[in-house]
């Protein structure tokens, strides 16, 4: 009995917070657009019993998914999101790895403070932090004022409302998700391995590449998934920092929902996005499992 409860809790969690919402969205994606409250048909009416339910089922179809294949906007948006997510992930590794390495190499009594500093930005609302980047990056913003005052540039750089601003925003926001797993991997690293390598005549540089990097691989992989998965569906950062030429699936989803008022197609876009995300999520799970087995 106790064992059953233990298993039931996570499954109930999954059912309530993932499966049920997903099924609702999936059902809407099979519906048709209507000008009503709510703006789609059919709606399940349980009062008519089994016949009503069968009638309800017969009205559902995959029309909206077919629609997604007919306009190149959608796959271009998925692809462009994937590209932005991939480049952002690489950038966060480049920025995050040295930080995590520095933290893991710092004297032990400092580490808790350094860790705290990485987590500290979470105390401010995410929205406010992205907004403040608008103030930094705009044409009359702090960055341009600073660069012009020290004479590096004579004309203000146009950064806000471009993809560069989107990358800056994403790297800034998701950096802690990259640093923390890499730090966790590096902190466990047995220093005597590096000493042994040096004793055997290995240079510091090659010891880093031959020992530190392979042993932190799991952390880098975990961090990459934690950055890539949410970035793919990101909406807030591209809509605040990006321009009209920034194409991401999150924005397309918004337009389907708000401008076209087409909940069924918006739901279809969301279902496809989820299916695309399932691939990296499964890979992530596998990686975690492998790691656990290796440790066990």
């Amino acid at each position, binding site marked *: 009995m106790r064992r059953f409860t233990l298993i039931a809790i996570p499954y109930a969690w999954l059912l309530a917070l993932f499966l049920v919402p997903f099924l609702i969205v999936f059902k809407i994606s099979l519906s048709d657009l209507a000008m009503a*409250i709510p*703006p789609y048909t059919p709606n399940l009416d349980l009062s008519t019993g089994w016949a009503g339910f069968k009638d309800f089922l017969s009205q559902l179809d995959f029309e909206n998914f077919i629609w997604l294949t007919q306009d190149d906007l959608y796959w271009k948006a998925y692809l462009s999101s994937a590209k932005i997510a991939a480049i952002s992930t690489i950038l966060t590794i480049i920025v995050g790895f040295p930080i995590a390495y520095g933290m893991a190499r710092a004297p032990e009594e400092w580490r808790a403070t350094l860790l705290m500093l990485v987590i500290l930005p979470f105390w401010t609302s995410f929205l406010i932090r992205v907004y403040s980047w608008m103030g930094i990056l705009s044409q009359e913003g702090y960055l341009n004022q600073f660069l012009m005052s020290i004479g590096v540039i004579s004309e203000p750089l146009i950064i806000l409302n471009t993809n560069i601003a989107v990358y800056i925003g994403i790297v800034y926001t998701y950096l802690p998700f990259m640093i923390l797993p890499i730090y966790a991997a590096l902190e466990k690293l047995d220093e005597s391995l590096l000493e042994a390598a040096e004793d055997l005549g290995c240079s510091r540089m090659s010891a880093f590449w031959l020992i530190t990097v392979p042993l932190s691989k799991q952390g880098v992989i975990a961090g990459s998934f934690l950055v890539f998965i949410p970035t793919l569906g990101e909406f807030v950062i591209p809509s605040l920092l990006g321009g*009209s030429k920034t194409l991401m699936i999150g924005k397309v989803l918004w337009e389907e929902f*708000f401008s*076209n008022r087409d909940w069924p197609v918006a739901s279809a876009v969301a279902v496809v996005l989820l299916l695309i995300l399932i691939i990296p999520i499964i890979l992530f799970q596998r990686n975690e499992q492998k790691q656990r087995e290796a440790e066990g």
Partner: protein
Amino acid sequence: MNKTLVTLTASVALCAMAASAEEVRVYNWSDYIDEDLLTKFEEETGIKLIYDVFDSNDVLETKMLAGNSGYDVVVPSGTFLQRQISAGAFQKLDEAQLSNKGNMWGVIEDRTAKYDPDNAYSINYMWGTTGIGVNLAKVQEALGEDAPITSLDLVFNPENMEKLADCGVHFLDAADEIIPAVLAYLGEEPDSHDTDVIAKAEAVLAGVSPYVQKFHSSEYINGLANGDICVAIGWSGDILQARDRAAEAENGVEIAYNAPSEGALMWFDQMAIPVDAPNAEAAHKFLNFIMDAENMAAASNYVYYANGNEASQPMLEEDVIGDPAIYPDAATLENLYTTSPYPPKTQRIVTRMWTKIKSGI
């Protein structure tokens, strides 16, 4: 067990009481009222006023169509109102509770009847035009003394736009306002729902969009006022706000607003009561309060938009009622057009076209 039940009943009763203690929830556009009016309403009626704001009709419509928004008064624009009425989102107004209804202005009521027949579901709050705001000095520098600042040729002719691109041009991010403007420029029916006619507008927009710095519906206020941009297609009151901000800042920026000579879109923001409003009676009291001539005049004097309240006109400041950009003269009024909502299939084509114009995809 019993104790829990008692507590539960007590808290349910408490909730019911909280709901019956009079309150009214209003959902209006941002920067769209003199906030002193909100306190005045609470003092006069003793009703607690909860005032939230939005910045796009799309957001409001999604809340209305989802149902149970919890709001008692909302302010959609004409075409959105029409669509939401047909979806059954609003309740008919009870005229017996609206003693100030006689203050309303027939000229405006005639026009809003297009969206809301007999004005049965809504009252007009503010109205305005969509036109062109320019930084006079910069535009004349780019195009010469005789720059066509009163014509849509300024923004839809690629030759002019190419010269203006460097000083910055913003367009409203609203396909249902820009496309009718292009059609008016082309001499077509602005309110055309014919996709072949709309495609003509697309061709014009594709020619000028490379020179548009941004499609956005509010940044142009600051942009014009600071001198960061020199031209914007925007809403009358917003551009007039930019003009006044620039004048106050004494930064040498002189802004002018013109309703285009080819005709300008006239739009209406209407106050309506959702069908599921929890406090419909208090909502009527709020509408009646807004329709009071003195209150409506205070709102217009504050936001620089014209209102649909004839009785308020003697109380308007001279720089509001006397400004033809806010209260157009009879000839301009004749030249204004209104639009109606696109049917869903056309809406989809228009949105897709708009995405293509903005992003090139």
